[in-house]
């Protein structure tokens, strides 16, 4: 019984802990589709002429504006799973995480946006006899295209400047070597909640990656695979 209880606690813990950190927060809508939305900054409140009660708010100059073009900033962490392989080893499941800082430019047309990301990539694959991990700086650039006001898709390319480590089970230190990584990214974002002061969106992103050939101990090969990450995006205006 005990092992089963532990599994339930583990599953629940992963689910809860997985939901909480996989978020990002920033200023300004990070993608297309938000221009023209009435935004409130400060004590001014959006108003509907003729309304009473909660609607009886006043547009105050300097506090209420229309969302529009410009640079947006967001920081947070992507979390997800990956299916990858190293050298002659079979593909196996692992985890991926990437704390990142995004700077986006949304033009006046509001149909597209470009995001530059500076991230730090953590990828881990678990084998029966060892753990294979990749860590390093991971800049990327993505192009976003607005399908609707609340839905936009994106695709991009990235690089990884880090090291590959193979750590045998039971060993404290592994064998490591520097390895560049090429990444391709594609995903979609969906704005669930839009108010005069916030947008809350969910972003799902698929990635594919490969490193160059790297000699590590008795093995030589590349780390290749693909994965999926998800993230909640909270934008403040």
């Amino acid at each position, binding site marked *: 019984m005990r092992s089963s209880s532990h*599994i339930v606690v583990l599953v*629940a813990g992963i689910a809860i802990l997985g939901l909480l950190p996989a978020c990002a927060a920033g200023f300004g809508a990070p993608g297309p589709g938000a221009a023209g939305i009435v935004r409130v900054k400060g004590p001014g409140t*959006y*108003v*509907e002429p003729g309304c009473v009660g909660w*609607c009886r708010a006043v547009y105050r100059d300097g506090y209420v504006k229309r969302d529009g073009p410009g640079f947006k900033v967001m920081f947070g962490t992507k979390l997800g799973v990956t299916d990858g392989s190293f050298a002659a080893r079979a593909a196996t499941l692992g985890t991926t995480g990437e704390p990142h800082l995004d700077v986006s430019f949304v033009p006046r047309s509001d149909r597209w946006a470009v995001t530059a990301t500076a991230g730090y990539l953590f990828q881990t694959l678990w084998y029966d006899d060892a753990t294979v991990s990749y860590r390093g700086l991971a800049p990327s650039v993505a192009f976003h295209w607005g399908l609707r006001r609340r839905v936009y898709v994106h695709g991009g390319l990235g690089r990884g400047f880090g090291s590959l480590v193979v750590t045998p089970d039971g060993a404290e230190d592994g064998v490591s070597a520097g390895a560049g990584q090429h990444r391709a990214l594609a995903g979609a974002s969906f704005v669930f*909640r839009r108010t005069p*002061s916030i947008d*809350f969106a969910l972003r799902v992103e698929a990635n594919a990656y490969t490193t160059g050939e790297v000699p590590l101990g008795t093995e030589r090969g590349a780390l290749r695979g693909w994965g999926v990450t998800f993230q909640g995006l909270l934008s403040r205006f």
Partner: protein
Amino acid sequence: MTAAARLAAACALVAGGCGLGVGPYQPRRDAYATAGGARADLHFDEAERRAAHQAAKRQRVRELGGGETPMYAFGGGYYVGIKQGVSQTRAGDGAWSARVYAFEVHAGFFHAVLRDRVVLGTSLFAVGYGTGDRAATSSARYVGAGGELAVKLGVTDSLSLRTAGGRLHGRATLEEAMVEEDATTGAWRAAAGLDWVVARVHGNDLVLTTEAQLARTGEITLLGQPRNVEARALLFELVLVGI
């Protein structure tokens, strides 16, 4: 039960069984994700809220690709939470186990249709049935994760009926006479329940969800015999829904 176990159980009861969401969790609540502004004095009045709500829904903006779309109003919403309650399990035609604690972690997306009379939804979940039954000498457990589709029908402004069906994948474990064996297998699950708006807190709904579940795996060989593992559960959740 040790003091630590009691403390853990108390923490689980407090932290578990709660959920948070935004949008049309309940039919007939006009639950569109809008914002009509907020009063500085935090005074709440239902009539005022409804007026603000409708006003916010009337704000429109040019849609990408042509046409118009509501600026804030949106018939979809999402929620995350933890259901908890009791479950029983059995293998084959054996007796149901003792009632033991069960819970489910879930996240879902909902959308109101048919003028807010019906809410359709989909959820991903991880669930454990039949855990913690330390007294039984023979027991079955099932731990898995999966997804489901749900339909909610509004009965009154504060009460709705919900049914859901889905598929999950996990591990069934059978223990007999101190011998334990497990197998990975899929299972179908059906659920039905009631959602009741018990209170409104500053314009947000506090919804008590109760749900009966039945899960059944395909036929698997455990301890030398082919059999199904079944689980049934009664779970509840208190969901705070921003609308």
